[in-house]
Structure formats: structure tokens, C-alpha cells
């Protein structure tokens, strides 16, 4: 049997693997982009340690001060951004496929608002300084998502019920956040406001490690879920005929996506737009792959880290990564939209 165009079958005795060269090439290309983003992120910053000196210090060359700045401040921040972006990209990919709706993002199930409220509480509670405890984000996100699924009483038809319930509840939660922000004194409110924009300042390995572990643990089930989600595109009946259990797949995919998005929000705040744009772009780049999980993840990581670097590159005031992804992501999505025929 001839393989589907755009795929290559590698056979070895009884074993065979279906390879798609294009997504694979895109993935490898994106790994290169990650490396470039890393060099760029290390090279840019305030102070004197910039440019080539900084990149040199990455391998222990140059002065010890430069080495410390690079290894204590910049590389951890890059890693934190990378894992957060990857988690957002994968979560977005799963949810968009699940709902078959480009408007569906993890924050529809209350992840962002739950995380924001939790961080707000940890700040108002007053033990963790202006950016709050890192674990408050994921815990709040999970709590909100669990509440949404429990209140919705299951996913409903094609997962729509949980999304609409999610919108309803997150509007209610969000109103409480904005009310609290309006009642805080102006300095505290501004500190929290910059967090709600998606800001990676001061994030390091302490924060990146749990997210990295979560990513490593959740990636295999995410790939499995993507495999079965593909079947659902033919309709629930066909999928059931092929041996899949639609409701179980949907719940599983949603759970994975929420966990990933919750972890990501805990690291960098609700970074705008990455969860929405990464899967759209991934779909365009890796055409043959129906559910491009890995490509979405890599793209998410690159987008967040490059945005964070850009935010540090201009002017004296740092601009949060979420603001950059918003400002640049919009026109970028438009370009994607317009360059498409019809």
C-alpha cells in the first residue's frame, strides 16, 4: 500500500513507523530558533554585560561578573519563559482541537482568572512580596478549572458546555479581581496589574523547575490525546466505531491542557495570545500534521522568550512579555490571515 502523500513509512521487519517529513523538519528548525532565542535573550539586558561578551560568558568565558549575571539572571529567566510558552502552546493546541474553535483558549475555562485571584490573595495576605507566591498561580488555576468542570457537570456536547460555563464563572471571578484592584492603594494595584499582563521579571529555576517537570510528565499523555483527538474530527459516531471513547478523550485532553496552562500562568502571569496564536501558526507550518502538539509547544516557547527579550531591549522601562505578545501578535495573526487565499 502506498503511503499517504507527505508521509514516509519506515519499516523494519515487523515494526513500522509513519514519519511526516515536513512537521519533523519544522520541529528541527524550531529547535534552532530556540537556540537563537536563547543567545538573543542572554545578549540583551541592562548594564554592561551585553552582546558578544554575554554570549561568551554562557560557556564560562570572559569575566566572572558577566558569568554570574548571565547564569543567575538571564538564563533562568529564559528557561522560565521557554517552559511557560511551551506549556501555553500545547494547552492551546489541545483545546482548539477539542472545541474545533479558534476562539477556544485555556483561559476560557477560568485558568487565568483563577490564577490571578490566587496570586492576588497571596499578595493581599502579605507574605510573599509584590509578585506573590509562585505556587499560588497553578493552585488557583486548578481550583478554578475543577470548579468549572464540576459546575458544568461534565463536558456536554463537543465540550461546549464546559467552555460556556467557564466564561460565565470566569467573568464572575474576574469582576472580583478588578474590584479588589480598584480598592487597593495605587502602588500595590500597579504591581499586581503588571503581573496580570504577563511578566517574567525575577522568574528563575525555582519557578521553572516545577513547570519543566510538569511539561515532561504531561507531554506523553498530550501526544496520546492528540492522536485520539484526530479521530474525533470524523464525528463521534465514527470515532466510537474506531474504538475511541469520545467523552473520555475530551475530558483527558481538557485536563492536560488545564494543568499545563495553569502551570504556565503561575510562572509568567496570563501572557496574552500565545495559547491562541501558536497552534494557528503551527498548523500553517506543519501542514500535514493534523494536531501539531510539539510544533505548537516549540513555537509557544520561542514566542514568549523573544517577546520577553524585546521587552528588555528598548528604552529604560521594561515592558512585560504579555504586552509585547499582544501588540505584535495581533498584526502577525492578521498577516497570517490575509496571506491565506480566500
Amino acid at each position: 500500500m502506498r503511503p499517504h502523500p507527505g508521509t514516509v513509512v519506515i519499516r523494519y521487519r515487523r515494526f513500522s513507523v509513519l514519519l511526516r517529513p515536513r512537521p519533523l523538519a519544522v520541529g528541527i528548525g524550531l529547535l534552532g530558533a530556540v537556540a537563537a532565542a536563547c543567545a538573543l535573550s542572554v545578549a540583551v539586558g541592562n548594564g554592561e554585560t551585553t552582546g558578544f561578551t554575554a554570549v561568551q560568558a554562557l560557556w564560562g568565558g570572559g569575566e566572572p561578573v558577566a558569568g554570574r549575571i548571565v547564569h543567575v539572571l538571564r538564563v533562568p529567566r529564559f528557561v522560565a519563559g521557554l517552559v511557560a510558552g511551551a506549556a501555553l502552546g500545547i494547552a492551546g493546541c489541545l483545546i482548539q482541537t477539542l472545541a474545533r474553535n479558534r476562539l477556544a483558549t485555556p483561559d476560557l475555562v477560568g485558568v487565568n482568572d483563577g490564577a490571578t485571584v490566587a496570586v492576588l490573595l497571596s499578595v493581599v495576605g502579605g507574605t510573599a512580596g509584590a509578585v506573590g507566591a509562585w505556587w499560588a498561580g497553578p493552585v488557583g488555576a486548578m481550583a478554578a478549572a475543577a470548579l468549572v468542570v464540576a459546575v458544568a457537570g461534565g463536558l456536554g456536547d463537543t465540550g461546549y458546555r464546559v467552555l460556556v460555563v467557564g466564561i460565565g464563572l470566569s467573568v464572575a471571578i474576574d469582576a472580583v479581581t478588578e474590584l479588589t484592584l480598584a480598592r487597593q492603594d495605587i502602588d500595590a494595584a500597579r504591581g499586581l496589574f503588571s503581573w496580570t499582563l504577563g511578566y517574567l521579571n525575577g522568574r528563575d529555576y525555582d519557578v521553572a523547575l516545577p513547570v519543566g517537570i510538569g511539561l515532561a510528565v504531561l507531554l506523553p499523555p498530550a501526544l496520546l490525546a492528540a492522536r485520539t483527538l484526530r479521530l474525533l474530527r470524523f464525528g463521534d459516531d465514527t470515532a466510537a466505531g474506531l474504538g475511541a471513547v469520545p467523552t473520555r478523550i475530551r475530558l483527558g485532553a481538557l485536563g492536560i491542557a488545564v494543568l499545563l496552562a495553569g502551570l504556565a500562568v503561575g510562572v509568567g502571569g496570563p501572557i496574552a495570545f500565545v495559547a491562541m496564536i501558536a497552534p494557528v501558526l503551527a498548523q500553517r507550518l506543519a501542514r500535514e500534521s493534523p494536531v501539531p502538539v510539539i510544533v505548537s509547544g516549540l513555537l509557544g516557547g520561542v514566542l514568549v522568550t523573544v517577546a520577553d527579550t524585546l521587552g528588555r531591549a528598548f528604552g529604560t522601562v521594561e515592558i512585560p512579555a504579555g504586552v509585547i505578545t499582544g501588540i505584535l501578535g495581533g498584526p502577525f495573526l492578521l498577516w497570517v490571515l490575509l496571506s491565506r487565499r480566500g
Partner: protein
Amino acid sequence: MQPRIAGSSGRRIRPLTGAFAMAAATVALCLVSMLYGGGDIPVSAAFDYLVGDPLRRADPHLAMVMTSLRFPRTAVALCTGIALGLAGCLLQSVTRNPLAETGLLGVNAGAALAVVAGITLLSTEAAPAVLAFALCGAFAASGLVLLIAGGGARMSPLRLVLAGVALTATFRGLSSYLLLSDAATYDRYRFWVLGSLSGVTLEQLGWVLPALLIGVGVAALLVRPLGALSLGDDVAAGLGHRPGTTRVVTAVAVTLLTGAAVALCGPIGFLGLLAPYVARAFTGGGLGGRLLLSAVAGATIMLAADVAARLVIRPYEAPVSVLLAVIGGPALVVIVRTRRLLTLRVPGGAA
């Protein structure tokens, strides 16, 4: 695909009964809105004033409260509620997306950016100026979205939605940047964004009334073409309608209605999502019935939220968007749980 509730369980309330019940509730809420409020005016005094007691009418303080505080507020709540309900129903129908809310075409984000930029650059905070910024921003943003979505090719629902989302993100990013660099503007903005009906005047309502009236009129004209469009572009074309033109006109109507509402009472997106769901709980089939019920539902919910905003933490005022969320969030959950959702999808939006 014909939008309807497939196999809803249980008995459905008759559409007419629902409409009358909601209209009665609206009238009752208007009365409540005139009778209760902040300040130390007893309910009986307000009631006597309303029924025309000459003694009460002669009281200048009472007359001031009734005619220049409570009446404008009630009228604005009614108008914005109708506008947002209609706009939400139109938008969900034209995008065929049950997740669409009225901020989708960039109206709210554009208004917010204009308000933030206006306060920062022109350093004025007067209410009429803020209203003017919001109105201009809303119309400009939505016009840009339409221009991009309709540019060149035929405007599809997906193009409209994506263009709106993209520009919303850009506007939001730009206003965040301005807000981060200016503390005073952020201080004003964080109250504007909560939305409030306190301090609106009939004069301000008069400024946006043309936009509202045109929007309502266009919505009425759109019932047939938009209903045909829900059967698919080809069928609609076969019935003598123009799908592309219909979409543009609908988007313009949504912009007029939402822009006027946002200028009056801040960015309230949620009502536009909720009202069509309430309407759909009563009626399934025709678009005309759903539009009408959405408008009435929008007015009812807005009035209820505004009255509650005045009463819950007397003598202070709660922001109306918080009350809308607190009342509307659970209401949406109940509706979604008791009825099967219509499962419209963005055509071509599937991965």
C-alpha cells in the same frame, strides 16, 4: 445549519409567555429603579412623587433626585441593555459562534485604548471627554476590523472573528503599555473599566441616541437576510440575499449599538453574551423572536444589575459590571446546564 435547540429535554416555556413575563419584569424594574437608590429619600416619598402628589412635586430636592439622577439612570440602563442584548444576538448569529461576545469586533478594546490615550495625552478626565474618546475609539476600532476582514476577499465569519481578536490584542497591548508608564492614568482607568451608570445625564444619552436608533432600525431590517444566512451562503444567495453585504451591515449595526453602550457605561461585554442565551431558553426557531427576546432580556438584566449596584453596599455604589457578573455568571451556568447547547461552529475553524 438551522440554529435550533436539538431535542431539548422537558417542556419549553412558550415564547410569547416568556416575552410578556420579561416585559413585565422590565416595567417593574424600571419602577424599582425610580423608587430605590442612594441618599436618604424614603420610598414612600419617591412613590408619591411618581403618582403626582403636588406636595412632593413642590419639593426641589426630591424633584432634582428624581428627574436628574434616577430618571436618566433608568433610561440609560434600559437603552444600553437593549443595545447590548441586540448586538450580542446579531453577532452570535452572524459569526455562527456561541462564544462570541460584543467585545469581539474590537469595540471594547478600541474604546479602552482611546480613553487611556485621551487621558494620558490630553490630560483631561471630564466625563463628557471620556465619553467622546470611548465613542470615537469604539467606532474607529470596529471600522478597522471591518476594513481588514472585508478587504479584497469575501468576508467570512472566520475572517471577521480572527481580525477582531487580532486587533483587540493589539489595542489591549498598546493601552497596557500606556497604563504601565503613567500611574495617574491607571488610577482613572481602573474605575472606568469596571463600568458604572452613576452620573450619566440625559444630555449624554442624547449624544449617542442617533447611533442607538440607527442600530435598532438596522437590526430590524436584518431579520430576514440574517435568518437566510443561517441556512448557508448558497441558500441565502438563492433566496435573493447577498451574504457579504449582510455580514458587513450586521457588523456595522453591532458596532453602533455596542459603541454607544460602551461610551455610556464602560466596557460591559458579558451582557451581550448572556442575553442571547436567555432568549434562546425561551425560543428556538426564528431569528426575529430571538432578537426581540434578547433585547428585552438585556434591558431586564441591566436594570436588575444597576438597581442591585445601588443597594448591595449602601450608601456606597458597587460597579455595575461586578453585579452583572455576579447575577449573570450563575444565570448562564443554570441556562447551559438545563438546556442542550446549540453546537454551531466556525466553518473552516476546525483544525
